[in-house]
Each structure stands twice: as structure tokens, then as C-alpha cells.
């Protein structure tokens, strides 16, 4: 009793189940971040005064984080490409790099947050900081979720490469789609929060 189309694509849709599933999930994520983005616009338009992000936040650190996250997206897609070329060792390396970069991102974020707290800048200080902390924290949670999944696929989950390589490749592709989406969200958050 195996559920069909877990590793091969259904002929008429051309998709395997998890790929459709992750895209639907990402669609809902678009609506989640969309609502928060909309909130940002509203707060900013209605505000009597709105600070420039770069006056309060640390642009060089955030630029570093942007570079880190984009790099991790590239290593993620390279990990998948390595599996497509049947090079498992390369996959291990690229996936390991992806996880490391994600951890670097989180560490940088931690320093950013603690610097704010040291200067007594809290979510309750004003609506700019409120939306900054809320959105970046939610994005950070998404990063943590991605790290957990990627670590599983790098470690214990990678045993599947021996038993069902096609399905394992699919899993890495699906994890990748999620990871690129998290990167994509940051691509918008970075200019909106830090540069404007």
C-alpha cells in the first residue's frame, strides 16, 4: 500500500506530491508575510514621523547577512544539483555549507538584537521597532525551521540516498524550495527595514 507519486511525477500534472505540497505551503507563506508587509505600509503611511532604517539599524551587519543568506541559497541549489549528478560527497559538502551559513546568519542576528536591547530599543519603543522585531523574529524562526530540516537531510535523513535516491533528491529539492523562499523574503525585508 504505497501512496503513488511520492518519488515519480504523476503523468498528467508532471509533479510529485511533495513538490505541489511545498508550493501550496509557500503560497500560504506569501499571504502571511504579505499581511505583515501590508501592516508595515499602513503603519508607515499613518505615522507622524518614521525613522530611516539606517539611522537606527546596523546596515553593514545586515548587508553581511544578505550576502550570507544569498550564498546559502546558492549552496543549497548546488547541493541539489550535486545529487542530480549523483555526487553524494559534493552534496554533503554543499548541504553542510548551507547549514553553516544559516547558523552564521542567526549569530549575526543575535548580535544585532542584543545591540538594540543594550541601547534600550525594544519592540514597545515605537511602531518601527515593533514591526522590525516582529518580522525579523518570524523570519528568524523560518531560518531555524530550515536549519532543522536541512540538518536532518544532511545527517540521518541522507541514508535514504542508498535506498531511494530519486525520492531523496526530491526531498532536497523541496527543502531547497523552502530555503530559497526564506531567502526571497529576506531580499525584501533587507531594503524595506534597513535602507528606507
Amino acid at each position, binding site marked *: *500500500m*504505497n*501512496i*503513488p*507519486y*511520492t518519488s515519480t511525477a*504523476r503523468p498528467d*500534472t508532471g*509533479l510529485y*506530491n*511533495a513538490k*505541489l*505540497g*511545498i508550493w*501550496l*505551503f509557500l*503560497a*500560504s*507563506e506569501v*499571504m*502571511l*508575510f*504579505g*499581511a*505583515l508587509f501590508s*501592516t508595515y505600509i*499602513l*503603519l508607515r503611511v*499613518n*505615522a*507622524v514621523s518614521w525613522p530611516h532604517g539606517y539611522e537606527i539599524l546596523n546596515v553593514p551587519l545586515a548587508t553581511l547577512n544578505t550576502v550570507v543568506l544569498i550564498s546559502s541559497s546558492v549552496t543549497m541549489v548546488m547541493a541539489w544539483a550535486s545529487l542530480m549528478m549523483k555526487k553524494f560527497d559534493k552534496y554533503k559538502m554543499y548541504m553542510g555549507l548551507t547549514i553553516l551559513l544559516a547558523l552564521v546568519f542567526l549569530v549575526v542576528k543575535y548580535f544585532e538584537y542584543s545591540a538594540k536591547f543594550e541601547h534600550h530599543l*525594544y*519592540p*514597545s*519603543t*515605537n*511602531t518601527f521597532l*515593533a*514591526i522590525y*522585531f*516582529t518580522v525579523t523574529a*518570524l523570519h528568524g524562526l523560518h531560518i531555524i*525551521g*530550515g536549519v*532543522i*530540516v536541512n540538518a*536532518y*537531510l544532511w545527517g540521518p*535523513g541522507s541514508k*535514504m540516498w542508498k535506498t*531511494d535516491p530519486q*525520492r531523496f533528491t526530491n*526531498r532536497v529539492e*523541496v*527543502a531547497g524550495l*523552502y530555503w530559497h523562499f526564506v531567502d526571497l523574503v529576506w531580499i525584501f525585508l533587507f531594503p524595506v527595514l534597513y535602507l528606507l
Partner: protein
Amino acid sequence: MADETSKHNSQKQAEGVGVGTHAHVHHEEHHHEVSFIRKYVFSTDHKVIGIQYGITSLLFLFFGFTLMMVMRWQLAYPGEPIPWIGLLLGADRAPDGIMLPEFYNQLGAMHGTIMVFLGVVPLAVGAFGNYVMPLQIGAIDMAFPKLNMMSYWVYFMGGVTMLVSFFLPGGAANSGWTSYAPLAVIATTGQTVWLIGMIFLITSSLLGSVNFIVTIIQLRTHGLTFMRLPFFVWAQFVTSFLLLLAFPPLEAAGILQLMDRVAGTSFFMPSGLVVSGIALPYTGGGSPLLWQHLFWFLAHPEVYVLILPAMGIVAEIIANNTRKPLWGYKSMVYAAIFLGFMSFVVWAHHMFMTGMGTTISAFFQTTTMIISIPSIIILTAFFLSLWGGSIRFTTPMLFALAFLPMFGIGGLTGLPLGLAPPDIHLHDTYYVIGHFHYVVAPGTLMALFAGIYYWYPKVTGRMMNDMLGKLHFWGSFIFLNGVFMPMFIQGLAGVSRRLYDGGEQYAHAQSVLQWNEVMSVSAWLLGLAQIPFIINFFLSAKNGKKVGDNPWDATTLDMAATTSPPLAHGNFERVPEVHRPPYEYSVPGAERDFIPQHERTA
């Protein structure tokens, strides 16, 4: 990323059971004793999960109804001690058995929350969708069984969270099921727990909706094209998209309100807010209206989440019991899709009184009038389906037939509310309560009961008692109208929906006060009318008349191609192929008056 793990586990599960797709499925099962916990508690079988959803949501429905029965005492006899249970409620809820206004507010908020998010939606989507939809499309299970199990348990945790909030200091959430800011932001701790409970429930329905859509698109059996899907499957399909795309904005809003309450942010708090002469410690700069927009962006599509599965159930039962194909199947499908789409563009008609500009009001009035068209198309198709049929007045059919005028009343009374000028008068009166309860209670609930009577023999292999069923039907039908019809009268007189004393202190309410008692007595009798159902539900599982594999002579795969009950793993002895549209009843020249979808020849 949960579907990753689910994929993994579904495979493990499949290996654990170790069965092939062929016919000797059940022989092998005897060799693998699945533990009780895996079989009934943490099961990944969509049928068991469907039953779990069904029983849990029925319990929540009954609990939510009980809250209302207690409220109705206060409305009918304000200030008098509640008999029997009054003293059990405790001094902080009802000293000397007399209900406190704060407790009344908790009951109101939690009644709405429980009925919508823990009762009707989990029953309509979680229970019926889970159990019936995979059977109707000829699938052996859902696409992600492990995810399906998670969806149920996250829902369960959400439910427990909501229940626990009653025992907090200050009690459960008391700012209405809509939790409008800034009231909800400054409310007691119960509101924080409410928000956490909602985040559980939203996560659960998100997991469920992804699973439903993937299952319908990917696991349809050979020959089952989209235009051959039973209408029930279409209804679930559209519903899942609504849940998928409308819930996240509420999740965002929930997170923001949680931040306002816990971290002291001011997303929904305007500047310079003073309550009871005390300035609140918020920096301000937020917008209370933002909450309403984000809330109704979900909550209007939610209305169609409540009604579409009900229409799906009614469609199956009407086709089956009129013994003829549904009239206008295609237009019904297109109407359902259009309905789902439009439901995202009408939300601000809940907010005409918030001072929005006339241009925006005009826009939302127009979309609201447009959305009534697909609902009317579907309802008309149902009525025309009855025409010329040889109707079997079975218990499920009675409930399904009652759905039609009840939903009709609910829908038509909504039109004045969708236009801003009459809404100025009717806004926040009992008229509104009457309107949406007609849609959800005599409407959707009737359809859900119809579904229970219709699929019960498939699930248990035994029929429910017809006499008790009819007793349940007539009792419910009469008393539901007894509860909700007078609300229109009170509402037109201008009685506010939020009065703790039922309007006793208001001059304009005096002429309609006598209806409070009528409604309350009807509500309690409605409670009594459920007793035959409860008895029937439990006793029939043991003593009901045994049925064959196709108890209603139906054409769809769920009834026609499975045993009663369907096989524990894999549903079908051999996965059926589909050769024809869903409702081939009374085909001229055919041997019998129905041709199942999977039969090749007539």
C-alpha cells in the same frame, strides 16, 4: 517542511504494514498486529483521523451549544439565579448562581470561537473531508498521512488550549469571537491564551488544506477527470484553497496582537488611548482598524468554508435520493469556484460602520451583491434537481431538504446587511445574529447531520434508526426556527446583540422583550431534541440494522466501490477506475436505476 517528514513516515508506515496494492491485503494484515495506539490514537489512516475529527468536533459542538444554553437563561430571566448549574460555576463567574456580566462576555466570545473553529469547520472539513474525499476519488489514503495525523493533533491541542482558558484568573477570552482591538489588547489573560489556541488551529487547518489539495490533484484514480468529480470533492477543493490563502493573514494579525499584549507593541493601539480616565502605557501609532481588516480578510472566506462543504454533502444526498443526476452539475462547479474567488473581495462589508469612505463602501457593496449570484445558482440547481425526481424521504434526505429553505432564509436576509444604508440600522443588532445563524445553524448544521445519517452505514456497517432519526429531525427543525426567527423581529426593532440583560433596560426593546423567553425555551428544547440523536449515534453502532456494501444504491466510489466499512488500509480491494460522470441515476435503458462510476458497462 513538515511534508518532508510525512513523506518519510508514510513510507515507513507502508513498510511497517507491508501490503501490496493487490487483493490479498487483509490476509497480510493478520500477521502484523498494529498496536492499539497506532491504530486508534496516532493513526495515519484517513478514515480513523476522520472519525477522530468527527467525534471531537461533535463534542465541541455540544459544549459550545451548552455555553449558549446557559447564556439564554440570563437573556430570558436576567438577574435570576441559574437553576441546577448556577452554584457550580463558582463565585467569580456567578455569585449565588447569578451570572456576572464578565462571565456572560466569556460565554459569548467562546461560543462563537468554539462553534466556528472547533465545531463546524473540523466537522465539515476535518471529519467529512478526511473520511469521504479520498474514498470518492479512489485514493488509498491522503497524500501525506503523517501530516494528516499532525493536523488532527494540533487541532486537538488548540481545542484543549481554548478549554483551559476558562480556568485562568479572569476567565476565558471575553472580547467577542472577533477579538477587536483595542478592547482585546487590554483584556484579561484569557485573550493571550485564545491567540495561542488560534495559532494552533490555524496551523492545523493549514496542514489539512495543503494535504487536501495535493490529494485531490495528485491521487485521483484513473479516469476521474475534474469534471467527473462528485460535487462534494469540488466543495472540499475550493474550501481548502480558502483555508490555505485566507488564514495566514489572520495568523499574522494574531501574532501582531500577541506582540501588543505580551511585548507592549502598538500595532493596533492608537495614540493617546485613555481607558477609565487612565492613559494606557502604549506608545501608540497603531491602527485598530487594521485588526478588523486582517480579521475579516479571513473571516469572510471562513463563511464559505462553513457553507461549501455543507453544499457538497447536500449535493450527494439530493442526487442519491431523487434518483436523478444533479441539475446543472457544471454550472454548480463553476459557481463554487467563483464563490470561492469572490469571497476574498467582500470582507469590508462587515465594516460599513467604521467610517470608511463612500467609494470603498460602494466597491464592497457591489462585490457583495455579485457574490450572492453563485450562491443562488447552487441553491437553484438543488431545487431544480428535485423536480421530477422520485424522492425517497429518508432521514438524510429530510435534513438535506431542510437545508435548502433554511440556507435560503440565511442568504436572503444577508442582502440588506450587504448594503450600507440598511446596514446602518441593522448593524450589531439581533438581526445580524439571526442572519448568520440561519446560514450556519439551520443551514450548515442540518447538512452536517444529513451527512452523518448518510455516511454512518458506510463507516460502521450499520444503519441508524429511522424513527429516532426522524424524531431528531423534526425536533431540531422546529426548535432551530424557534430560536432564530424571533431574532429578526428583535433586530428590526433595534435590539443590540451585546446586551447582557436581553434589552430589559431599553425602552425601544420593550415591545419585543417577550421573544427572549420563546427563544430561550426553544434553545433548551433544541438541546432535548438532540437526545434521540445521541442515543441513536451510540446504540446503532452495536444494534443497528446491518447493511450491504452500497446501502443507498449510490453511484460514487465511496459508496459503490468499497465494503461497509471500507478496508482498514488501502480502502479498496482493487483500486477502481472511473468510466462515467458522478451521478448516473435512472439512465434510460439501464438494468438498475443507478450506474456506479467505476462500472464499465451500463
